């Protein structure tokens, strides 16, 4: 009787990289085949190969557009980080401030950003600034909420320990509350970086002379549909790369937070 085949658990690289990559390859091949077999017109859904060749032909300008969008995304993202941290600390510092500030925050979130963008252009002028502001407005809210949740989720015993050691409120914030909030901050940052890409594109739709959002608007206007799809693919790659960058920063600088993340979130 032959020995039963042993079931080997898959190596980490296989589950982490090969499986998702394999799924993408299958998806792209299926897309290509379906478009060719059913003769789907390129102005409706172009084949992946057409998207690639059309985009690659304009590699130089496309790279410039990608860089422009990346710049807007990063500036908007950084602004939301710089604003959210003190804002979250402020909100959590007293119930009165929280009651006063929360409704204002909700108002900023209830305004449709697409509707706001043209008004921001009127206010700030036709330049990078309104795009960064839109990006910031789209991205910062979940970040504030996660940081605030992190700051208030500290076990009461740790706060008591700090008080028993006569730690000042400032020290309590820096040495207990903010470090404790790190896993929450990172789950907020992951949401914020993804939303930043959305915000940057919204800003570019309304007012821009470059960027991937601008490229989509102009290339569809000229029926260069494969190029618009190419910009779309680049946008999703940009989103994935930036998201992974946040994940890597967390793993490298706050390895303990990755575990806490899995437990609490």
């Amino acid at each position, binding site marked *: 009787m032959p020995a039963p085949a042993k079931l080997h658990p898959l190596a980490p690289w296989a589950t982490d990289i090969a499986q998702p990559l394999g799924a993408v390859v299958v998806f792209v091949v299926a897309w290509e085949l379906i478009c060719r077999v059913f003769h789907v017109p390129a102005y409706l859904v172009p084949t992946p190969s057409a998207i690639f060749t059309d985009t690659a032909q304009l590699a130089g300008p496309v790279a410039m557009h990608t860089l422009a969008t990346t710049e807007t995304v990063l500036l908007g993202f950084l602004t939301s980080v710089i604003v959210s941290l003190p804002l979250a600390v402020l909100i959590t510092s007293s119930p009165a401030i929280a009651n006063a500030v929360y409704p204002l925050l909700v108002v900023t979130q209830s305004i449709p950003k697409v509707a706001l963008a043209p008004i921001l252009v009127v206010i700030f002028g036709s330049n990078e600034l309104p795009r960064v502001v839109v990006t910031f407005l789209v991205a910062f809210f979940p970040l504030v909420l996660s940081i605030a949740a992190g700051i208030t989720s500290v*076990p009461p*015993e*740790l706060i*008591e*320990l*700090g*008080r*028993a*050691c*006569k*730690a000042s409120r400032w*020290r309590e914030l820096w*040495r*207990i509350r903010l*470090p*404790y909030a*790190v896993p929450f901050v990172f789950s907020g940052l992951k949401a914020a970086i993804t939303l930043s890409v959305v915000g940057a594109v919204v800003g570019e739709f309304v007012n821009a002379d470059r960027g991937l959002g601008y490229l989509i608007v102009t290339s569809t206007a000229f029926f260069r549909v494969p190029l618009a799809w190419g910009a779309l693919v680049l946008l999703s790659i940009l989103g994935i790369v930036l998201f992974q960058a946040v994940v890597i920063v967390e793993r490298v600088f*706050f390895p*303990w*937070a990755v*575990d*806490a993340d899995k437990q609490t979130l």
Partner: protein
Amino acid sequence: MIVLERVAKTFVSRGGEEVAALADVSLQARRNEFVCLVGPSGCGKSTLLRLVAGLVAPTAGAVSIAGTAVTEPRADTGIVFQAPTLLPWATVLDNVLFPLDMMGKLDAAGRSRARDLLALVGLAGFEGKYPRELSGGMQQRAGICRALVHDPDILLMDEPFGALDALTREELTIEVMRIWRERPKTILFVTHSIPEAVLLADRVVVMSARPGRVAEIVEVNLPRPRDFDMEARREFQDSTHRIRTLIFGARHARAS
């Protein structure tokens, strides 16, 4: 050493209702005495500890330590909580050093004391590990070291073994007695376990609930050093029986 005189503590709930946690509690603990507090849930045991720690102020009455009224947290008191609540981002050594760091008293002597304490509780070699790499029992040992690192003369322990399994619990009970023998301190120890209280304490303060009062103080006349084999002794059973009677009433105590 620790004196509570006719202490009452009333909390005001969110709805504005007054809840009496403690009413008219008078209690004294001598220097280096081991005092256990037992009683049903809601008898204000934890509140009593927080009053002695200076974390909450009494509504009426007075708390004093060595003749000085307690009005704020005091540097020479250590606290162990039910959950170890170690800082997940800090190593075991840094966790133990945390109180010194917060007090701005971190020095070489403190570091060597922290290492000694870790060795004392059997955590030598784990200084550089992170809390997540430790079992629950080991984390609580580190928590005890953290409470002792500034060499306090009073140690407050709030159900420190409540979250541990029964075997680890027995092990740590013996450990605490050993630490207390090697570094005598006045210990107030809150527990739900009557045998644990009897084994550990010089005196067991039995409390009744709603509002929390001292029902009786039971002296435990077991010789030291003690171990779990003493559970078979007459004095041990007399004490646990007496405490059960006080908490549950005569009928239940006989049945158990």
